[in-house]
């Protein structure tokens, strides 16, 4: 990367390029701007059903872009309580607004302490600069 990317400071990040936003006892999960830029135009999602269990570090779903198919890993553990249904018809939301309308799932946090183990914006930015 030539310039430090703009990263929302209030999010937590994984080295696999997912982000998490805490909303009380819930966590919103998506993929980062860097991830969507590397994937290119996203065309399809395979997301877990509401009620599924997310396990931190394990596969949560799959993203298909015009270039490749990638796994999405759960940054935190807990029950999936909402899935972004808009992505089914408009997967491009992940490209246009990765931190907003392109969110993927909401998870009922099983252990909020897991968030502390994730990268903060500065640490994630350092990781991107190292790539």
């Amino acid at each position, binding site marked *: 990367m030539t310039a430090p990317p703009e990263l929302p400071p209030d999010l937590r990040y994984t080295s696999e390029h997912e982000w998490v936003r805490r909303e009380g006892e819930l966590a919103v999960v998506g993929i980062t701007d860097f991830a969507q830029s590397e994937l290119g135009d996203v*065309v399809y999602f395979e997301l877990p059903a509401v009620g599924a269990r997310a396990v931190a570090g394990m596969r949560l779903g799959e993203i298909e872009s015009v*270039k490749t198919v990638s796994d999405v890993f759960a940054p935190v553990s807990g029950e999936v309580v909402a899935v972004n249904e808009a992505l089914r018809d408009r997967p491009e939301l992940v490209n246009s607004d990765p931190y907003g309308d392109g969110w993927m799932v909401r998870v009922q946090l099983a252990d909020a302490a897991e968030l502390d183990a994730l990268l903060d914006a500065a640490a994630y930015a350092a990781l991107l600069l190292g790539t």
Partner: protein
Amino acid sequence: MSAGGARLAFDRGAAGRRAADVPRFAGTPAPLPDARLLRDELRLPELSQPELVRYYTELSQRNYGVDSGTYPLGSCTMKYNPKLNELIAGLAGFTDAHPQAPEEAQGTLRVLHELQAALGELTGLPAVSLAPAAGAQGELAGVLMIKRALEERGELAQRRRVLVPDSAHGTNPATAAMCGFTVTQLPTGADGSLDRVVLARNLDGSVAALMVTAPNTLGLWERGIEEVAAQAHAAGAYLYGDGANLNAILGRMRFGDLGFDVVHLNLHKSFSTPHGGGGPGAGPVCATPELAPYLPAPIVGARAGDGFELVRPERSIGRLQQFHGNAGVLLRAYAYMRALGLDGLRAASGLAVLNANYLRALVREHYDLPYGGPVLHEVVFSGSRQRRAHGVRTYDIAKRLIDYGFHPPTVYFPLIVEEALMIEPTETETRESVEALAAALVAIAREAAEEPELLHDAPRSAPIGRLDEAEAARRPVLRWSPGLDP
């Protein structure tokens, strides 16, 4: 493109026109089936014969194949398919053979028997089945054979893992997963070969097999593969070889001599049989005598007296498809091998490697080469420099090559190379055509710096310009209807 060029057969001609006269029926009409089953409004194209011929000629002229020009699609070995192959495979003795009367096709069986022996000799793995209809099916057969062998050894319950380097073909982990194994991906070291420390750490009693693509998708040989084989065997695991890149080592190195237990080949790559348009292919599987009893059926055996017959190996994994394999493809591969002979095959692999390295030398200053040093059959450049400095992506570079009259190379594969451009010229290309391709790549690198919009808008010369692949995948239009803009 001109509006006329996009017209489909339905939009041409006029009511009542015919391309051929059908003789009047002179027999006794049979009663019609239930009229409710018949459609009374079926719009069919109505064209005169010249209109029809012009339509298909126009379509065929939009095609780009290895018969039209350089087709350097990495990992695909798009070599020229000699026309002699077609002549041989078209002989009536072969084409008239009926798959349900195999015993009567003694000539065909003899040729297939000789092909089995030749592939066994070339790979050093003497037990061969020609049944798999494609490379991926050959892989499936090979891993199922390993699974069956482990089952008989009573070790299948504990050997649940298959190790796959990240420089392998993407079908390898898919095959292992399809066979019910858990896939562990192994990282590639800086020299482009397996990280041996990680390998040693992973090789234990839970491993069924290590699947190695040799040469790998970086166009590099796996260094010390004999030691890797010994390590795998010491741990009780099998060594599977993806032989899709055989064109680099044909007639020079044998998988069996290096310690591989089973490999699949892609005859439609290495042995010059057609594989445009999705096939058909042929993916024979070659194995050690230990694994021979598990080969997929049928194989061609020599009868005790004379002649040949189709046989099912003792503890075969079974059949992979109806009938006996893609005989037409197998015959073409046989014709190619007999025409070239061992010396010719060796010369072909030498030229293929020379061409890839010549291209690498001509282009290397203009694109990044993440894994430096000489390569085998293909070379993987990276468009990272162009992306960072000029906002041009590998995708744009590939599309621009169309304007220069070349088929684009493989892009964004292997995944371990950022913005990958994977180029395999094969031995088919002459010195001049390798130089012309290199000159185009160098010119495009210059354009990326000076006029990047040329690349963003490419191709400009093709009948259809830049397609919106994302939109096509997100909202595919799967059915033509009258008035739909093609």
